[in-house]
């Protein structure tokens, strides 16, 4: 091979995979991305049926809990927090990838976010909905919880204690949900208008017309819209970091070994992004196959997500290492007992080792391009990471609680069927909401993909003189 030809071949081999496959026109992108809405799939109906039945488990679990009290759960003394708070933290964490992708990657001008941001934002909203359910039910009497949680004038003349991290949580989670919902809906408006204008049935035109609020794609509107969207991204960035930091304060502000740790806020945020990206992969890999989005959610998107998971896994691993180091370096016997005895060799040692395997070992495979580009392995790894992150919350909460300072108060925790019904029920409810989203709302941000498509074609035309 001649040197220039060789250089060209090497350039080709090293060039990243495209963000949008082929050279689609706006009309082609439109048809392709709206196909799931206008030509529904039989698989979808089956999946919705299964998810709806699974949601029944949630209804049963919640009914039993509310009718008979939280004594129906496995929580006891000393393990007063268990599945409820584990699932709360796990779901909230999953939600974080949505805001990270839509806000932080937007600010860093990472163009690959465009095809996946809508998925991830929807995931955030649905995950936060599941999360919010747990602390609310855990109050035991949710109908009273409103004055425990929100400051409103009541006849008893009392207010929530704003020095409590649990109240900070209420503000953080409700703000996060509201802002995520507004951000998602604002992003959806132009695409709902596209749907309204593409639809041929009158009912669809009216329904999407109402939700599109009257969007026409006017440049006078786009001007304000872009500024508003960017500022919303700007304020969502510190918000997403604050939410999991505040969730970590629920633990870090206490004095329990395993909880009382200054590294918790950054370590929780990294863990949330890690688990959230894993969930995006778990959902997007089957969705892109079923709904044929491979042209806009390409191998490059999956590979980039694998890289983010590798980085965040290493931050989480550093967190594990530092916790152990501080337990040794502090010389505190309670810390040492927890980290060197209870966790690795105690009753729940299996869960601890599973956490290390899933969160530390599995993502190390992403150093190899082969692992990052194998769709099957990415999917398996993403599920393992999801399990690992759930195990991490179990380790933090249950293992820290079941061996208290005094051996006389030691105990064992085991979840009941109600715990399982509620946990598995939230997974089904989340899936149900996600499936409805895939069917009725543009799952890929069409306006943004069109804009990106034009940018890419413009760059190509100017770089090489050929499309």
């Amino acid at each position, binding site marked *: 091979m001649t040197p220039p030809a060789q250089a060209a071949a090497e350039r080709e081999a090293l060039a990243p995979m495209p963000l949008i496959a082929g050279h689609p026109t706006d009309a082609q992108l439109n048809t392709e991305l709206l196909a799931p809405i206008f030509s529904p799939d039989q698989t979808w109906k089956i999946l919705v049926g299964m998810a709806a039945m699974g949601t029944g488990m949630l209804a049963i679990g919640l009914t039993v809990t509310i009718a008979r009290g939280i004594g129906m759960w496995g929580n006891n003394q000393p393990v007063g927090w268990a599945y409820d708070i584990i699932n709360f933290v796990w779901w909230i964490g999953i939600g974080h990838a949505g805001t990270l992708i839509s806000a932080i990657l937007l600010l860093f001008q990472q163009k690959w976010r465009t095809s996946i941001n809508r998925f991830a934002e929807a995931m955030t909203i649905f995950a936060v909905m599941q999360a919010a359910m747990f602390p609310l039910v855990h109050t035991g009497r949710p109908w009273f919880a409103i004055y425990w949680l929100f400051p409103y004038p009541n006849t008893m003349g009392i*207010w929530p204690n704003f020095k409590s991290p649990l109240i900070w949580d209420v503000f*953080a989670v409700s703000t996060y949900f509201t802002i995520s919902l507004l951000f998602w809906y604002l992003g959806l408006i132009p695409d709902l208008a596209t749907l309204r204008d593409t639809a041929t049935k009158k009912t669809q035109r009216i329904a999407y017309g109402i939700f599109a609020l009257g969007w026409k794609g006017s440049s006078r509107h786009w001007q304000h819209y872009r500024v508003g969207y960017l500022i919303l991204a700007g304020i969502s960035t510190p*918000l997403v970091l604050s939410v999991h930091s505040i969730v970590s304060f629920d633990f870090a502000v206490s004095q329990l070994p395993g909880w009382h740790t200054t590294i918790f806020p950054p370590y929780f945020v990294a863990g949330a992004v890690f688990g959230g990206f894993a969930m995006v992969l778990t959902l997007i890999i089957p969705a892109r196959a079923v709904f044929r989005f491979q042209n806009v959610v390409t191998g490059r998107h999956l590979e980039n997500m694998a890289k983010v998971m590798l980085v965040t896994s290493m931050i989480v691993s550093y967190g594990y290492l530092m916790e152990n180091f501080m337990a040794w370096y502090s010389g505190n016997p309670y810390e040492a007992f927890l980290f060197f005895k209870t966790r690795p060799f105690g009753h729940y040692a299996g869960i601890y080792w599973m956490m290390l395997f899933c969160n530390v070992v599995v993502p190390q495979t992403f150093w190899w391009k082969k692992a990052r580009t194998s769709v099957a392995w990415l999917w398996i790894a993403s599920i393992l990471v999801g399990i690992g992150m759930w195990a991490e919350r179990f380790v933090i909460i249950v293992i820290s609680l079941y061996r208290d300072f005094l051996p006389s108060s030691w105990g064992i925790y085991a979840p009941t069927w109600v715990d399982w019904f509620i946990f598995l029920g939230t997974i089904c409810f989340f899936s149900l909401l996600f499936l409805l989203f895939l069917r009725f709302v543009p799952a890929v941000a069409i306006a943004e993909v069109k804009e990106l498509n034009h940018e890419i074609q413009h760059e190509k035309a100017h770089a090489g003189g050929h499309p």
Partner: protein
Amino acid sequence: MSAATPRVVLGKYPSVDALYGAARALQAAGHSALDFYSPYPLPGSDEVLRLKKSPVPFIAGTAACIGVVSGVLLQWWTNDVDYPINVANRSVVPTPTWMPVTFELGVLLAGVSIFFGLMAIFRFPRPYDPLFEVEPFRSATIDALWLSVAVKPDQVSTVSEELRRLGAAEVELVPEEA
């Protein structure tokens, strides 16, 4: 409806350059009530349309300040004045424990004000618009670039002709609002 109510003429253009060229020519001819419609934001349209700076940052900034101040006042009044809670005898006035709620309220009000501020600027919700009566105009959110110009009723035919001369592939007249 009075005879002086301006009518809206629409022209569909094949490229951004043609669109901007037509807009500049119309501006030179004295038309200023112009707008573009596109499926995605067009770079440079603000300059061509000579749009003023967006008030959205100001709205968001003001709302964020209100959120922060109300967060501080809320916590101070409820926990230190109306129903004082002494936690470990810590100082009463600005404590670090106020920071999370203050921050969250600042973000919450800023975000909500951006959304509703935009709705107010756009005068949304407005599910009906005479523009939607023009069937080909539906392509504005799909794959086409449209230019609109509001003109006096007696100018409609000359402006329509002008739009065609400036490269419009299609020209449409928006029906009068009922």
